[in-house]
């Protein structure tokens, strides 16, 4: 059974919005910044878990936005597997964020780390909850690009080299997804 629920976009949109807020408040107060980062991961987790009863009732949730980014459109979808993975990922992210508030104390550039960590979470949630390969591709690209900043956090020569290699692989990888998405599209169109 399928049901439309636009609340499905919230686990993605809330961290996305909060990332901007975290970057803005990070300049002023580190307490607020760290607190908001944890709150972003927590809210993402809660927003996933709230669908527990619906999913257990064998209902697949979908949210479709065909008008966004025509001609392909954007859609979200949550079934048993999606629910499980989304819940686990956001929960682990919550733990990691709590851990990093302590671990990162001695690190530099924390104002960069937290917003991009939350942005990566938004991308990851988007990848998990995506309803079609095109949406998957969109969020995969977002996740990969923001993860680049986390990869090179050390800014040592070694990290930069690894980061550059990683960055050059992103377009190659993601375009392959687009490719796979397009072939059936092409076959269907003719």
């Amino acid at each position, binding site marked *: 059974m399928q049901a439309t629920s636009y609340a499905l976009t919230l686990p993605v949109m809330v961290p996305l919005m909060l990332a901007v807020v975290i970057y803005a408040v990070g300049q002023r107060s580190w307490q607020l910044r760290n607190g908001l980062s944890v709150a972003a991961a927590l809210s993402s987790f809660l927003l996933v878990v709230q669908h527990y009863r619906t999913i257990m009732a064998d209902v697949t949730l979908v949210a479709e936005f065909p008008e966004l*980014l*025509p001609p392909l459109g954007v859609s979200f979808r949550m079934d048993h597997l999606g629910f499980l993975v989304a819940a686990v990922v956001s929960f682990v992210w919550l733990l990691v964020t709590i851990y990093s508030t302590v671990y990162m104390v001695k690190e530099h550039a924390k104002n960069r780390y937290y917003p991009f960590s939350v942005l990566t979470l938004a991308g990851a949630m988007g990848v998990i909850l995506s309803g079609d390969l095109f949406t998957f591709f969109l969020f995969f690209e*977002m996740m990969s*690009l923001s993860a680049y900043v986390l990869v090179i956090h050390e800014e040592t020569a070694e990290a930069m080299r690894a980061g*550059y290699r990683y*960055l*050059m692989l992103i*377009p190659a990888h993601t375009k392959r997804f687009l490719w796979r998405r397009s072939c059936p599209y092409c076959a269907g169109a*003719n």
Partner: protein
Amino acid sequence: MPEFMHAPVLIVAVLLLAAFITPLLGKRQAATNAVFLGAGVVALVLSVGMTLRVLAQGTLSYPVGGWPAPYGIVVLVDVFAAYSSLVLATVALIIFWFAAFGPREVRHNGAYFTLILLLTAAMQGMVMAGDLFNLFVFIEISSLAAIAIIAIKGTKESVEASFRYLVLSALGSGGLLFSIALIFMITGHLNMDYIRTTLMVTAEQYPLNLLTSIGLMVVGFGVKAALFPMHVWLPDAHSNAPTASSALLSGLVVKVYIIALMRIAYLALGLEIFALFPIRHLFLALSTGALVAGSVFAMVQDNVKRLLAFSTVAQVGCIFLGFGLFNQRAIEGGVLHILNHAVMKSLLFLTAGVIIHQSGIKKLSQFSGLGRKMPLTFAAFTIGAMSMVGVPGTAGFISKLYLALGALDADMLVFAVLILISSLLNAAYYFPIIISAFFGRDSDAEATDPAFAVLAPVAVLAGMVFFFGMFPSLMVPLVRQTALLFVR
């Protein structure tokens, strides 16, 4: 409904009027700016009204002086012309804004603004022209004004670059004039509609004349639009011009000639021409060359403005690719790319100008660490670069997606691969700039973000990159109907 009936001529007339008034104001800076920006705003309002009217009521044909078609000059505004005029008016207004309040690079703003306004008026006239002679007059005005806004910087390099542009552009104009003369010889008309109906009868009797004419036309417009092997003037010209000129030239001027060529193709020559002559194959071959060569040349540049100029060569190839593939999606992609590339390349050129002005650094090898000193400027540059690479959520992604889907629709997988390769090449020369600027070692250069008034137009363009990346549906009705003009 008589609203905006006069918009096609009023847009050109208002810009021309402002062009004539600005030199009179002399040193009164505030008044000059007011006239300059006022003309841009009025043109934009008229263009929006005209577009809405065209969408509601179909093609608007305006007989100048009240003389009917075969005798008088007709201004013909179909969806393609309305879309082009809207793009021109919007992007030009933002560049006007930057020219008025950005860093001063030209001694006489009065004369500079006159030239910019003349150029914009000519471009507006060109996309709406309904007969070939009128079109040619506007082409000449825009070519001369474009050359002048490069040379006005007054440095040795800019004068040399503009002279080279002048020679090649004059060659192109000569070709166009000859081609128009040949068409007039075959048909006896200059009005595009009448040429098309006459050609249906006479084309078979004069195949050689028609072939020569089309060849000259493609070469003439190709030189002016910097289609791949004819692009040699572009890198010097666009990189040595003042910042606002570079943005205007790279963002709008090269594309106007593509629009004019395609308008002639479907209005005057008729779409049968694509079946009779291998124009599409020519476009496909040349745009492949442009996409690869432009990107490869861009990679080895050390001057930021030259890199952007070579990137324009590649992106012009992208637009031609859309018309070469010639199906609904591909043409939609090419037409969308006219807007998207105008927005993102103006953004990149304006930020590059700001960076050069604030830090005095032109060389990419010295950009290391600059991003931390001027974060807002480099954030804008990053947005533009991401759009050039085609990161989802930005405008560049949408047009590349449409082009790739168009290539698949045309069963030409190789061009979909080509687009992916070009995106990868773009990433290979844009991302290192950003990485070294934000994460590189600190250099000695002193630089700060400029005042808000300078950055405001840049911020608007950056916003537009995201806006057209997220909500392309705003332009879709216009773009779809434009594509339908070609593939009926």
